[in-house]
């Protein structure tokens, strides 16, 4: 009997091991463990054994049964795994077929650049101001200390709506300095981006309408060193950590001292190349300490308060940021251009 059990076990395990389908496995299970199965048949002979032999044989029989059951379970698992594998294989797709991309809109590159600038200043406690583009000549010029004969007032440079030069298209965002001084409590920290207009024919670097960002701080103890520190920070945010800048004296009617800030050419590192027209530096913005006359005209005492201001062209910044070669692309709005950003 012992031999019978051992034989069944060996045969059955081999059979389960080799089984190829769930149906065949089921057949085998019936063959060995079913009511008329081989193991059952052997167990039926247990009655014939002596009382001494019975427990040992019983244990052996149970061991064989459970090992067969275990083997069946294992075989079933194996078959299931194989089936899943086959199914997944059949479901294989070509992953190089393009995805179903939802159409996404794109922000205009100039506003991408502007948003970066806004973020830098908002983070430093600046308020963002909007103001009129059709502006009073008084605010665009007189209140900014531009003398009556100043060349920027020429009709060949600036657009006017009346012969008295009272109402005009602002030629700079700087009148926003005056509007801020007139309406906001001190201290003031503002930036004011917006459209400005100058009488330039359209070409690769000029447009009669373009954008500037104005920035201004008025507080007690504001210094030119602060101006440099803040603008250096801006340059680093826009063009990366370690960006090298330099400040050159310049002239604007509404700042004194005045300066222009250059950024060392990122392409040649200051040696000179076509990008920087051989100069090694690229002009980024104009700035300076607010002219005491401008403060006085706004009723602010220059002995008590000081301030700095800057103005930068957005188109040029965006063009540099994205390596756009021709300004006309900015206003052409070809979607093949817009969707690159």
């Amino acid at each position: 009997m012992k031999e019978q059990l051992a034989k069944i076990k060996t045969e059955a395990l081999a059979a389960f091991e080799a089984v190829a389908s769930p149906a065949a496995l089921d057949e085998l299970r019936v063959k060995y463990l079913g009511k008329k199965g081989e193991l059952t048949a052997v167990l039926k002979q247990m009655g014939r054994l002596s009382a001494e032999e019975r427990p040992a044989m019983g244990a052996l029989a149970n061991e064989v049964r459970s090992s067969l059951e275990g083997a069946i379970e294992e075989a079933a698992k194996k078959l299931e795994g194989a089936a899943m594998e086959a199914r997944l294989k059949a479901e294989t797709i070509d992953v190089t077929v393009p995805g179903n991309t939802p159409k996404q809109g794109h922000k205009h590159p100039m506003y991408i650049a502007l948003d970066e600038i806004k973020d830098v200043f908002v983070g430093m406690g600046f308020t963002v101001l909007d103001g009129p583009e059709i502006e009073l000549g008084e605010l665009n010029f007189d209140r900014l200390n531009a003398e009556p004969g100043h060349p920027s007032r020429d009709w060949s440079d600036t657009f006017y709506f009346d012969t008295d030069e009272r109402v005009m298209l602002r030629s700079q965002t700087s009148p926003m300095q005056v509007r801020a001084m007139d309406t906001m409590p001190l201290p003031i920290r503002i930036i004011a981006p917006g459209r400005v207009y100058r009488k330039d024919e359209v070409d690769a670097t000029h447009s009669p309408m373009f954008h500037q960002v104005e920035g201004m701080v008025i507080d007690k103890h504001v210094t030119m060193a602060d101006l440099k520190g803040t603008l250096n920070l801006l340059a680093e945010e826009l063009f990366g950590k370690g960006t090298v800048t330099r400040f050159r004296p310049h002239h604007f009617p509404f700042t004194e001292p005045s300066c222009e800030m250059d950024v060392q050419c990122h392409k040649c590192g200051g040696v000179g190349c076509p990008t920087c027209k051989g100069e090694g530096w690229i002009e980024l913005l104009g700035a300076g300490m607010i002219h005491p006359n401008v403060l006085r005209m706004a009723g602010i005492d220059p002995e008590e308060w000081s301030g700095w201001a800057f103005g930068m062209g957005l188109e040029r910044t965006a063009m540099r940021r994205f390596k756009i070669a021709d300004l006309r692309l900015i206003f052409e709005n070809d979607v093949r251009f817009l969707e690159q950003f």
Partner: protein
Amino acid sequence: MNLSRKWLNEFVEIDANDKDFAEAMTLSGSKVELTHDLGEEIKNVVVGKVLSQVRHENSDHMWICQVDVGRGEPLQIVTGAQNVKVGDLVPVALDGSLLPGGKEIRAGKLRGELSNGMLCSFQELGLDQRDFPSAYPDGIWILSDDPELTGLTIGEDIRTAVGLDDHVVEFEITPNRPDCLSVIGLAREVSSTYDVPLKLHQPVVKGGGDGVLPELLDVETPNPELCPRYTARMVRNVKIGPSPKWMRERLRAMGVRPINNIVDITNYVMLEYGQPMHAFDYRYVNGGKIIVRRASEGEKLTTLDGKEHTLTANHLVIADEGRAVGLAGIMGGLNSEIVEDTADVVFESACFDGTCIRKGALALGMRTEASAKFEKGLDPMNTLPAVDRACELVELLGAGQVVDGVIDILNYVPQPTVLKLEPEKINALLGTDVPMAEMTAILKKLDFAVEGDQVTVPSWRGDVKEMADLAEEVARFYGYNNIPTTLMRGQTTLGGYSPEQRLEQRLGSTCRACGYDEIITYSFISPTWYDKIGWPEKDFHRKSFKILNPLGEDTSIMRTTTLPSMLDILARNYNYRNKDVRLYELGRVYLPGREDGLANEAKELTLGAYGEGFDFYDLKGVVEAILKDIRAEDVHFEGSLGAPGDASYHPGRFATVWSGTNQVGVLGQIHPNVAKAFGVDGELYCAELSFDELMNARGAGAEYVPLPKFPSVTRDIAVVCDEAITVGALEQAIRRGARGLLKEVALFDIYRGKGIDEGKKSVAFNLVLRSDDRSLTSEEADEDVKSILAALEQDCGAKLR
């Protein structure tokens, strides 16, 4: 402003190379645009001596010359020129030399004879007959024939031999520094930048010319406010001829064409002193009287350039007793021009009112070098040294005899600006710690007189008026880049965005999320665009801000609608054959009517789209998404209310957009005629939403609503109704008929055709019913649906299909 470095070196000796010089000057405030080596295009060209000359055997016009170029054996050079003879000194371009225009000279054979270079004409060296008036114009430049070219040595570089060894620096001078529009002014900046002494020269005039000045010449200034100073001197027995080589060279380096000795002297002094000078022929000054007066209305004058001008009382003229002989500060008159036989010359060195000169020049459209200087405001103290310098040069050139004495009319009282030097204030403004002694030293170098804390500003520095101006002078020479960099201290300010700015950002992101690209269009448009978008001719919306001096008709008025700008861009993309275009712009319109004369600059959100299968509902869906995003309440769409602007749209595919009783905007298909006017033969769709109304329509912030605790029951219904009944009306009826359990209504089908009578349609809705306090029974739901169907029939004549 061009500056000859040779000329500069007469006043301040600097041997820095051009690049370093440019950088140093730029950083001290005189921005260098570019530098130019006058002889840079010439290489390996030397002075040679023709030793022998024989005919070329295989040519009837060529000569074979042996030329000594100072390098061992003479060189054989073949030339086709006929004006060369043995013993001549000529320019020789050696093998491997370069000539202006990139022309390279190499040794080679000419009809079998070796030629080791080329003999050159002055034109081949990039020169002009005016540079060397005596040079033979049509052949080799015989240097030894020019009496002015003395001391030539064989083998010498041609650039030093003929004065092409100068370097020119081009400066961008800002309008506050007219004093730097001169060699001396720039020399002063250079001297301060390099801390090298400035060598100024005091003109000395011998005089002794015939006559007594007051008897010869009388000057009147009836408009003293327009002529703060008028200085004049006279020269007699003038011999008009070319000016000497050194003067021509300097003029040429500065970009001025030599003309004749007297005219060249006026230009030379203008360049050196920055003081515009004028010379006129004394015999045409009738009565020996010069009157500086306003022109009379309609007075005519022909200027030196041959143009006749009709003047007004706004122009200042130099006149004799009878007529104008020059436009003050702008250009001389043709009637008193210096000519070949001019014998007596009057030199005028005056200071005119800048504004008057600027306006006069502008009105005539003739900004000249002189007027550009005057309009910036010149130093009245400069007229006298300048006129003396001119007379000194006359004597130096032997061009005439200077009459003793000067006519000098002074219509102003010189009042130097005196400022207090307050180092602590300057340091507080700059954020520096510059000692007083250093400040004083800087100012002194610039010729400011400093005594203790009293600073006297020199007469040519009209731009320096207060502490901040002194601070700039200190900063320039202390070095902008030596000022420390610090971050701001002081009271913290709460920065950030206004609610309007936040809404702008939000609208932009919704549009982009819906697949729309952002565009930027010009604020000014052509008035014809109102026609193109079909606006009625008399519509008051056409009333626009009109630019008086536009670049062109196309950009001459400020738009009162953003629609044509969008259509223009859609059309451009359409013509580029770009497919499936979706665009948005958040831009301004400029509406007249404000009391202060400025515009109401309202913002508009404009959407535009076209593409295969794109229809009204695609665009409407985006408008709905935008309104949903800002949680606008009671959003609904209606037909046209007959506004004139609606004419831009397809009358059957147009809707007005509402939030409650406020119209937020419009949307629809662009009228085919309008699309055609923009060159598009397909369907275009646009929406125009008012930013202000979007602001008003913003709903309250989000607040959590508990999730339903009980299941909902859904029912689909399809009703048949007349074609004219709108889905909106059906929805309204459904909502009216519902009895408090209806949570959602969603259209899911509209069907026309088989099984439905002509002129009718079947409309199917999905209804969601739910109670907040119990599970609905099927019966309860059916009750509600029954009531809804009753309302549909009653309100819309719609029957269950």
